[in-house]
């Protein structure tokens, strides 16, 4: 054998010192070749072959009758299904390879991680199996699924509602628990872990229910309730962690748990929870089709939590890609088929381009700094006087442009805002809310962390870009909303406008500006939540949602409370003095004045005046126009009215902080917490 190897190496002109190192792999190659030849020849000898068979002579398509004389005509779409399965499982196996190399170095921790990974994979596979995704060919299901037994699920409903009412206003428990329970760094990761476990459990539960042939509507509602309960517990933990005020680095500094991040997470969680909870009616409408809907929303929320606490650019990128993946599927759930499909394809296309831009920006940053940890990049930049050392900053400038460009897309702000109106129109109503609130809050908080933590000392590089986006999106949102009559498109344009206002505080480059941004972010969330909660509970005589703003005509006649809420919300959004929106805008413009960016101040003031027109137009439609067909409203559960009233109070009484404890606590904590310098805590 050794002689043979030496011969091979001699003929291949391999120097002798490599012979020892590569002898192992040569034996392997030789063995593989010999085995292959051996097996093929045995098969050739032993098999019965005939040339007479007509099937064997004809063109071969994998297991099918050949299509259209086997010309290169359109492909069978089943191949793609197999391709997807193959792609996913193949790549997941690839994840195990690094572990096999470092199996001793990882120790038991690595072993448990891999076991949990395989466990989650197994549960997913079980789910896939029981859901019928592996059946070949897939059955065309004409039955729309069984309607849920509502009486049974109403009890669970009441439990969740009671829990929501209990949890939201009471903060004494939070304060006491924060100092006793949540001071160790291990607790910082508990909520996400809990969420992953719950999602896995829900997957297993659905698989079990499908196996038992249970009522599919009840299964979907139970899953929704379970996930809502888990989110409530997580809200409690996040608030505790935010109060506790400690900074914990997790996973070698890839994730960081700060009071700021926990606070933002609680905001994301509350808005996501509302969207999840109010999609109940949507899920009941077609439970078989929408069985995964709550799971998709939960997974997207999980990725958002990771994004908010990311301290590593690649982790942040993965989180962004992760929640985008869920959103593609969520848009496709639209019941009006054609716009839903078009919106999905558009969002997929544009979102993937933007992620492509972002990842190259991240690569350039890695190229410059040789690390992707955000606090380390900040240190490097501060120590070295970055702009001179790193190639006069031009490389860094490209990186920041690419990175911010991708983020601007996800936020739907000026240079890449054109998708927003189309995709809002093509999405289901609850998904529009999901777009407007949790997604944007998470991405904006990451943007704030990006400009405060790694790039705080190079504000010259990013400030013009953010200011450009701010001015552009304020103007464009205002222009678009002026003549818009479609409700969802109107929402899209107003959110573009408000996103511009949020950028104003960032482009002021001052502590006051960031605090003002955060406050306005909270007000933005409350305003849009108020509008969406009314919008999701209203429907026509035919049971469809109010597609056009003119459908709101004469709303005050049928129900007075929602029309009052809408009035508050729109006054607040327009920035009329006693309401919250005024104070938010005032703080932003004050911060801009102090940092002497007067051009943006002029744009903000002018468009703020114009925007009162289109907000008050809706108020006029509600109160002063008449319609014969009254819109109907679904306030079946008293909780919905209560939560809407809470939102209304929040949007109205910003000037009286003691009146609503949550908003006061939020703003107070925000202003205290937002400037935790991360780098001081590094050893």
């Amino acid at each position, binding site marked *: 054998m050794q002689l043979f190897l030496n011969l091979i190496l001699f003929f291949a002109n391999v120097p002798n010192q490599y012979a020892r190192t590569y002898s192992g792999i040569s034996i392997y190659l030789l063995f593989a070749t010999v085995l292959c030849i051996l097996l093929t020849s045995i098969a050739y000898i032993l098999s019965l072959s005939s040339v007479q068979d007509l099937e064997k002579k004809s063109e071969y398509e994998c297991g099918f009758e050949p299509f259209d004389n086997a010309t290169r005509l359109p492909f069978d779409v089943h191949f793609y299904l197999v391709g*997807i399965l193959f*792609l996913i499982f193949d*790549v997941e196996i690839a994840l195990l390879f690094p572990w096999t190399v470092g199996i001793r170095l990882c120790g038991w921790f690595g072993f448990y991680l891999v076991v949990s990974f395989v466990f989650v994979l197994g549960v997913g596979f079980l789910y896939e199996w029981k859901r019928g995704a592996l059946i070949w060919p897939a059955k065309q299901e004409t039955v729309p699924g069984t309607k849920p037994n509502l009486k049974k699920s109403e009890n669970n409903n009441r439990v969740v509602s009671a829990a929501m009412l209990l949890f939201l206003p009471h903060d004494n428990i939070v304060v006491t628990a924060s100092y006793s329970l949540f001071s160790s760094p291990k607790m910082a990761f508990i909520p996400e872990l809990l969420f992953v476990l719950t999602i896995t459990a829900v997957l297993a539960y659905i698989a079990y229910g499908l196996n038992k042939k249970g009522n599919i509507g009840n299964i979907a509602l139970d899953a929704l309730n379970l996930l809502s309960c888990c989110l409530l517990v997580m809200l409690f933990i996040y608030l505790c962690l935010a109060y506790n005020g400690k900074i914990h680095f997790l996973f070698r500094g890839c994730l960081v748990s700060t009071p700021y991040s926990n606070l933002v997470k609680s905001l994301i969680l509350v808005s996501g929870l509302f969207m999840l909870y109010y999609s109940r009616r949507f899920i009941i409408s077609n439970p078989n089709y929408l069985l995964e809907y709550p799971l998709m929303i939960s997974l997207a929320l999980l990725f958002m939590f990771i994004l908010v606490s990311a301290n590593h650019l690649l982790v942040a990128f993965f989180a962004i890609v992760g929640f985008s993946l869920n959103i593609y599927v969520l848009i496709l759930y639209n019941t009006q088929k*054609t*716009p839903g499909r078009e919106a999905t394809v*558009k969002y*997929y296309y544009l979102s*993937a381009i933007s992620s492509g831009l972002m990842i190259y920006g991240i*690569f350039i940053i890695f190229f410059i700094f040789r690390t992707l940890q955000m606090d380390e990049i900040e240190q490097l930049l501060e120590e070295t006087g970055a702009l001179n*050392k790193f190639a006069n900053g031009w490389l860094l400038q490209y990186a920041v442009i690419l990175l911010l460009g991708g983020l601007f897309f996800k936020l739907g702000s000026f240079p890449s805002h054109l998708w927003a109106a189309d995709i809002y129109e093509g999405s289901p109503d609850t998904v529009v809310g999901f777009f407007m609130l949790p997604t944007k809050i998470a991405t904006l908080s990451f943007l704030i962390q990006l400009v405060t933590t790694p790039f705080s000392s190079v504000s010259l590089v990013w400030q013009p870009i953010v200011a450009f986006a701010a001015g552009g999106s304020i103007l464009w949102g205002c222009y678009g909303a002026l003549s818009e009559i479609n409700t969802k498109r109107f929402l899209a344009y107003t959110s573009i406008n408000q996103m511009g206002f949020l950028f104003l505080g960032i482009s002021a480059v001052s502590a006051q500006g960031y605090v003002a941004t955060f406050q306005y972010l909270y007000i933005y969330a409350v305003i849009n939540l108020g509008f969406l909660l009314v919008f999701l509970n209203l429907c026509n005589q035919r049971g469809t949602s109010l597609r056009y703003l003119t459908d709101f005509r004469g709303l005050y006649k049928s129900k007075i409370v929602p029309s009052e809420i809408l009035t508050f919300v729109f006054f607040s959004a327009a920035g009329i003095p006693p309401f919250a929106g005024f104070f938010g805008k005032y703080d932003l413009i004050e911060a801009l004045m102090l940092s002497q960016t007067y051009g943006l101040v002029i744009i903000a003031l002018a468009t703020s005046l114009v925007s009162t027109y289109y907000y008050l137009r809706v108020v006029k439609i509600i109160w002063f126009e008449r319609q014969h067909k009254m819109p109907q409203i679904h306030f079946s559960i008293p909780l919905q009215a209560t939560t809407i009233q809470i939102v209304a109070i929040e949007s109205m009484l910003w000037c009286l902080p003691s009146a609503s404890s949550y908003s006061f606590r939020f703003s107070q904590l925000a202003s205290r917490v937002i400037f935790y310098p991360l780098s001081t805590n590094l050893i």
Partner: protein
Amino acid sequence: LLFPNPLLVLEHNIFSFDDTVNPWLIFSFFLYFIGLTSTIANKTNLLYTVMSFELMYLGVITSFVILGSIAHIFNAYVYGLILLIFTACESAIGLGILVAVYRLDGSADWSTLEDLGG
């Protein structure tokens, strides 16, 4: 350690201009650029789009791996691997959308989808 602590930066492991003209990095930049342009140019079939994304991400992955090899950063290989996985997830979702669109519409061609008009 499997994941070396990035705080322990090696001495030769700093930014230098020579790396910007490294032929392999330029090669992978071209891969990325071809992917990006073909994504923007081909707005007809969803399958072309998915393949162009693959090419785009492939450019970034090779960039990470090549930078890891020329600057001796072990982390970069792991980044490349993880990036590969997310790329696969993205293209799997893309194929899923393709199948859904195909089933509802009869073709994967999306140049005709113009109802929203934006």
